[in-house]
């Protein structure tokens, strides 16, 4: 075991849902201070993969090492405790609950002693407001229900939360898909900052430009299998785009529409 073991390493991960095979042997590693982009077509298994890393699903077989040590997570809580914070594609937020309550859900800071242990909501409100400000959203009232936020703002809450609690690894599943240009820039900048702090990041996106802007390495999934992993200096953006989509046909459309996709 080397001293600088990857933060997360999976080998030959397989995941079945009943008779459906979602992942059939995926290997991947994320190191400190690295942004690993996970790319692939709709239904390639990206979300399933990261849900397995996050403790939502249990792998059917395969090895899963965190900092070189094999782990088995039985619940998302275990993953959180191991320092893996995740922004899910479906966000994992409760629409009827306030921004603050969603922000701290599952990890509420308490004060006082046992039977009278309180959550320090004033502190929570302050943190929420501050973290949201950092990502470029001005939450005037942190008591507002998350369900009343626009899709973009909600995404920002999920990201800010994951970043705030992300101790070692930050996983982001299509965080930029609902965001406007300004917010997207902010998130990409954020990912950049997080990497500089020495965290590992797994970043899922369908936008090859977003991926190429912040990614260090790119893993492409296809039909539940790894198609390959490439360092940024090994691959051009066009090649990457073709790998993501599967090639030929796309070229035609792209040209027809002026190469703008």
């Amino acid at each position: 075991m080397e001293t600088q073991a990857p933060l997360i390493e999976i080998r030959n991960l397989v995941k079945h849902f009943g008779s459906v095979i979602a992942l059939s042997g995926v290997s991947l590693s994320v190191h400190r201070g690295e942004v690993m982009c996970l790319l692939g077509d709709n239904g390639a298994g990206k979300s399933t993969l990261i849900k397995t890393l996050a403790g939502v699903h249990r792998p059917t077989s395969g090895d899963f090492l965190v900092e070189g040590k094999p782990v088995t997570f039985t619940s998302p809580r275990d993953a959180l405790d191991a320092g893996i914070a995740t922004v899910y594609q479906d966000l994992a937020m409760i629409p009827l609950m306030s921004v603050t309550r969603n922000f701290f859900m599952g990890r509420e800071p308490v004060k006082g002693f046992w039977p009278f242990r309180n959550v320090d909501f004033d502190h929570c409100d302050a943190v929420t407001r501050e973290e949201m400000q950092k990502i470029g959203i001005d939450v005037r009232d942190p008591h507002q229900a998350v369900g009343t936020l626009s899709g973009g703002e909600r995404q920002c809450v999920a990201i800010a939360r994951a970043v705030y609690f992300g101790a070692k690894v930050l996983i982001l599943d299509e965080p930029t898909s609902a965001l406007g240009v300004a917010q997207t820039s902010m998130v990409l900048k954020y990912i950049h900052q997080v990497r500089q702090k020495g965290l590992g990041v797994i970043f899922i996106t369908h936008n090859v430009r977003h991926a190429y802007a912040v990614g260090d390495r790119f893993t492409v999934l296809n039909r539940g299998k790894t198609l390959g992993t490439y360092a940024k200096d090994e691959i051009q953006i066009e090649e990457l785009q073709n790998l993501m989509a599967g090639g030929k046909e796309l070229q035609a459309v792209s040209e027809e529409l002026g190469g703008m996709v």
Partner: protein
Amino acid sequence: MVNTTQPTADLSSAPVIEKIQDERLKEVSLLTKIMRRPELGALAGLALVTIFFLSTADSSMFSLAGVMNILSPAAQLGILAIAAALLMIGGEFDLSIGSMVAFTGLVFGCFITLTGWPLLLAIAATFVVAAILGGVNGQIVIRTRLPSFIVTLAFLFILRGLSLVGLKWATGGSTQMRGIGAQSGEDWVREIFSGTALEGLFGWLAAHDLIAKFPNGTPTVTGVPVSILWFIGFALVATWLLLRTRAGNWIFAAGGDANAARNSGVPVDRVKTGLFMLTACAAALVAILTVLDAGSTDARRGFQKEFEAIIAAVIGGCLLTGGYGSAIGAFFGAIIFGMVSIGLTYTRFDSDWFQVFLGAMLLLAVLFNNFIRRKVTGER
């Protein structure tokens, strides 16, 4: 002009809480903030019902004795309603509450009359039994992933049936067990669970002619029935729990979206099991209070209370789908229900019309509650 461009998702079916961005609206915002709480509507409903009875009922209804008289049934229902509200917020139902009252009442009665345990031990043991039963309910719901409606419905029948069988076994054939009050002693434990509190105060008030007295000189109200104090205390604790603690956040999360909550690290199963146990313990508390008060228990105790508890919680603003509601709302809901059901006896209406009035009043209270909330929050 109001200038708001904060984005808001479309959430027209759920209570929308809008966001006011302009500083000039701060006062409105504060009012809105108070008024949008789920319990405020229930308070408005209570006001409406009170006004109705003030204008139609015998004046003795709102005398001190009358108010105590309204609060007694409200308290017993309310303890159940608050627990049911917590459980509903947590996304589950417990239809076995009413049967649980009968069953734990029987268990408690047996501990007192058959084993002859001291009151404190009997009470503790009853709570333990209730907690276990609640835990069983919860575990079945969690493990089988069946709707709690159907699981607890089965327990509604099972516990009601066991109460009958148990009563017959314990009493040698009767469906009524008497004499529990007499055997349970008169120590401080009993003071906590039965009779009235603050008797000194009321005696003093009566002595100084500040409250009404019977011809024989005793005050018409000798004190506050302890069940009312339990009711208020439980409402306060439950409110604190919901609004200020980690567990409260988890309850909202578990009911709002169990999957999302689980993914965020909330131990949803533990929260739900805990809530089922709490609900069962609330039923046990009501059983102990009524059994000590009445001195007896029978196979029909708590009949349909599960239903009334859910009604009170819904009047109090809980959503049946979970994730939204309040303990204080259930508190007011129980008082509305208690006031309507007792209040009609103070009016001149023929009791044949009782149910018609009960239904109409409930509908009116809820409509008014809804109307107020919409007016205030600008929701359409």
